[in-house]
Each structure stands twice: as C-alpha cells, then as structure tokens.
C-alpha cells in the first residue's frame, strides 16, 4: 500500500498540491468572510432597531436550520436565475462564508453576553459612545472568550470545504475520487487526502492555541471547547 501511495504522489502530485491549495484557500477565506460577517451581524443585532433585529434573527435561523448542501446548491444553481452565473470556487466561498458568518455571529453574541454589563457601564460613564464602548471594551473581551469556538469553526470549515465536491471544484475530496476513478487505488487516494485533512486540522488548532496564549489576559476565561 505504501508503494501505491508513493506512486500516486509521483503521477498526480501536482493535482494533489493544487487541490490542497484550493482547500486551504476556501477554508481561510470563508473563515475571514465569516468572521467579518459574524462581527457585523452580532453588533447589528445588539444595536439595531427591533424590525431589523428580527429580520436578522430570521435569517440566522434559516441558515442554521438548513443543510450546508442546500445552501451551496442554492447559491450555485438557483441564484444565477436572478443574477450572474458563479464559478464553483466563488459559489462555494459565498455559501461557506454566509454559513460561517451566521454561526460565528452566534458564538460572538454568546461571548458578548458573557462580558459583564458593568464593563459597558464603566465605558459609557467615561464618556465613550455606545459604538466605541463596544469596539474598545466589550469586543476585545468577547473575542478572547470566543476563541475556542472560533477555532472549532475554522476546523469545521476545513472539513466542509469538501462540499465543493458537489459543484465539481477540484479540491481534495474531488481530486481523491478523480484519482481513484482513474487508478482504482481508491483507498490509497482517500488515505492520502485524509492525512492532509488531519495535518491541517492539527496545524489550525496549534496556531489558534498559540494565538490564544499570546493574547491571554489574566481574569478573562475562555469558555470550554466543544
């Protein structure tokens, strides 16, 4: 089996590498989109007037209540009816990004609620506007609390980047199947790809843990990981 694996690397090395890059890109970019979107949604939900807050809530429940596959297919196949046709990568990025933004907004909201209300009171008593109090006092603490959940989210995105398989993007899982189809060495191909995922997941949690230690502040406890 080891022999076959090395063989595969030899012949299909570049495909595998490209797939690896695509997977990584999808993971990191959708995390960033999700993070920005998540912060935006979380803050909006706490300061926006009721009708808007309710609309956002409905959207959040919509995304949380439907499978990622349905969301991806909707972006890739259904949206073009009303707009431009998207390429597989962009469609996957959008679907993953929106999904992640919704989930990250939930983690952030929960973390924001963990920050004692008195911190905010102290900030506005100094004369900081609501907006500034949020940015300089509440969010820095909320982000530290949310770090474990955000790390989990990144790993989740790593795994579900594989959903792009369904829209024929040549990421790792698609490539593994493709190689398998051509060589019948399915198990070897899947093993290689599985190892890639495991290694990437490990790297992500190491980096995030390192980051967590760097920005740790005595007195702010991070909530337990899943």
């Amino acid at each position, binding site marked *: 089996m080891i022999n076959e694996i090395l063989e595969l690397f030899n012949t299909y090395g570049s495909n595998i590498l490209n797939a690896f890059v695509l997977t990584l890109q999808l993971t990191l970019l959708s995390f960033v989109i999700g993070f920005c979107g998540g912060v935006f949604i979380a803050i909006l939900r706490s300061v926006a007037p009721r009708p808007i807050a309710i609309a956002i809530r409905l959207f959040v429940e919509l995304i949380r209540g439907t*499978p990622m596959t349905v969301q991806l297919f*909707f972006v890739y196949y259904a949206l073009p009816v009303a707009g431009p046709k998207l390429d597989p990568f962009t469609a996957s990025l959008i679907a993953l990004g929106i999904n992640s933004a919704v989930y990250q907004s939930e983690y952030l909201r929960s973390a924001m609620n963990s920050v004692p209300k008195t911190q905010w009171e102290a900030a506005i008593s100094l004369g900081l506007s609501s907006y500034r109090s949020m940015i300089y006092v509440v969010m820095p603490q909320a982000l530290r609390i949310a770090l474990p959940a955000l790390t989990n989210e990144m790993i989740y995105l790593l*795994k579900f980047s594989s959903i792009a398989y369904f829209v024929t993007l040549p990421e790792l899982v698609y490539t593994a199947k493709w190689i398998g189809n051509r060589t019948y060495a399915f198990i070897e191909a899947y093993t290689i790809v599985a190892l890639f995922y495991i290694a990437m997941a490990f790297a992500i949690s190491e980096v995030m843990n390192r980051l967590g230690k760097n920005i740790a502040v005595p007195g702010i406890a991070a909530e337990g990981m899943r």
Partner: protein
Amino acid sequence: MQINVETLFQILVFVVSRGLATTITLTVASFFLGLGLGSVMAFLQIVVGGIVERVVDFVTRFLRSIPPILMLFIVFYGLNINNILASIIGLGIISAAYQSQFLRGIAEAVSARQLEAALSVGLSRWEAFTSVVVPQTLMMSTPALLNEFAVLLKDSSIAYAIGVKEMFTVAVNLANARMEYVHPLIAVAVVYLAICFLISLLATLVSEKLKHMGYGVSS
C-alpha cells in the same frame, strides 16, 4: 422569476413522500450508533483511563478532522456494503467522536458532585455509576444530544454523494429533471427547517425542565 406556491407545495409533498423516510432512518440510526459508540468511548476514557484514554482521545481528534464525505467514501468503497449502511456507519462513527466528548464532560461534572455522595451511602462503584452517574448524565446531556440529532439530520444530505435516495437527493434529481432548481431547493429547505424547528422547541422545553429541577445549564 416567479415562485409558484402551488408548485412548491406539490414538490414538497413529492420530496417528503420519497425521501423523508430515508432521511429519518439515516438520522436516527447514525444518532444511536453515535450514542452507543460514544458512550463506550467516554466510558473507556473515564473508567479505564491511562493509556487507553490517550488512545481514544487521539482517535476522536482524528475523526473530528475528517470531512464527512470522505468518511462516507472510505466506508462505502472500503468495505463493500450498500450505500445506506455505509452512510449510517460513516456518519455514526463521526457522531460518536463528538458525542463521546460532551458525554464525557458531563459525566465528569456529574461524578465530581455525586459520586462521593453515592459511595458514602454504601453503593458499590458499579452501582453508583449505573444508578447515579449514568442517569444524570443522560438527563443533562439531552440538550447537547438534541443538538447532535439536528446536526445529523442536516449532514444526512451528504449521502447524496453515494447515491442514497434521501430528501436532498430526491430534490436534486427532481431539479435536474425539471431543469429548475429554485422550487425543489426551497421546498426541501422548508422541510429541514420545520424539523429543526421542532427539535429546538423540544430542546428549549427540556432546558427549562432541567433548570427547574436544579440543573443549571451552561452550554
């Protein structure tokens, strides 16, 4: 483009009648496989401990890093079994990894409080475990278990990759036949939403009941 509510309804009925049963089967079966296997894994970690604990920990980290699609492929093409069974096993094993995590956490929290009390009353370790720790763990885990059930419901759609005729597959096949994706996708989304909504209602009820009984929730 216009969204025709009547068509939507017809498609919904179609998708539900052809796919819901399979979806539910996949979800329920993989949930219980995950629960059973996850309980064993948690048990091994808590009670046996030592090197076994490290090994199980390693295995769960590993299982939580692999994409579900890949797992399904490995199980399906690796062990030559039918696609529904492969889906149940693949999703179930991954679910076991996650379930063992929270089951273990809750069991340890419960043990910390209740085990000494149980032992002082005269119960043997085994009796204490089965009549005090396990029931309480299951009770307190209910919100997390319901959440896991919802996750499996949504992940069941991945079985599309190996041709299982669950709801999502039915919807997509229909969409291909009709050359139109909007109605089928909306219809199937509605079904998932409805079920998830029911699950979250249940979860809220359970959380309230637990709080009432004195078990503060902190998830």
